[in-house]
């Protein structure tokens, strides 16, 4: 599979997540769009990992470990994302308890 296909698919997913962050006002949906962007990057990392693995195989290295770092990066990104979600949702719950809304426009009191 050409790596370009994965590249453009990931870019499209990332852009959709970015547009969601820019246009929506519900804090939970913004948070979900951030997860979407993380997943787009994960998909691209796995595709690049397989690209390097194939390049190493074609260079004649059997039993190669090329590309394993990319997949471990994805694993650690998932770990960090899980921790981030637990803390972030706790913050959103606390915000809802204080202002009785998850609309981010109510957060502009941080300005003054």
């Amino acid at each position, binding site marked *: 599979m050409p790596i370009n296909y994965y590249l453009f698919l990931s870019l499209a997913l990332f852009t959709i997540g970015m547009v969601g962050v820019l246009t*929506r006002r519900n804090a939970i949906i913004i948070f979900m769009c951030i997860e979407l962007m993380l997943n787009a990057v994960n998909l691209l990392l796995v595709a690049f990992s397989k690209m390097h693995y194939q390049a190493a195989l074609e260079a004649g290295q059997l039993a190669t470990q090329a590309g394993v770092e990319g997949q471990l990066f994805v694993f650690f990104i998932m770990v960090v994302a899980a921790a981030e979600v*637990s803390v972030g949702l706790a913050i959103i719950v606390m915000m809802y308890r204080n202002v009785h809304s998850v609309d981010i426009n109510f957060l502009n009191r941080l300005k003054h």
Partner: protein
Amino acid sequence: MSIVQILFWVLAAMALFSALMVITSKNPVYSVLWLIVTFFAISGHYILLNAQFLAVVNIIVYAGAIMVLFLFVIMLMNARQEGAGGSKRWITLAGTVSGGIFLLVLVAALKDSELKTRTAMVMDGQVGLIKVLGNELFTRYVVPFEISSILFLSAMVGAVVIGKKE
């Protein structure tokens, strides 16, 4: 078209469509459900790339744990409506246009790059198997692995402290 290509295009279309539905649904519960569909499509891509470990972890962690957390929070706060009829029209327009420009610039920059002739190995390769990744994780990457457990502990404590009623 081979079976691999058909699977790729079906999964890609599914991922893009459900991602679009995530950001266009009015009801946050529907957004969560569409996001689960997106994660399953991405897991399908991982299986297609023979990254079996990550496919399983993606379903367990993302589609399982994280999405249940989202659903619980949404049900707890009954955040059904997006106050006063959603976003302003010009904000939606500006966000979409800037996202489109972002995509345009990156596609234009990358479409003729060196990567044009490279391919990713699909349906084959040992690198994504649990045995290989586990070996790496418990030898060369054992220190980051243990540090991530400390990260989880601190995230758990932080979530409890933040979420606690004063």
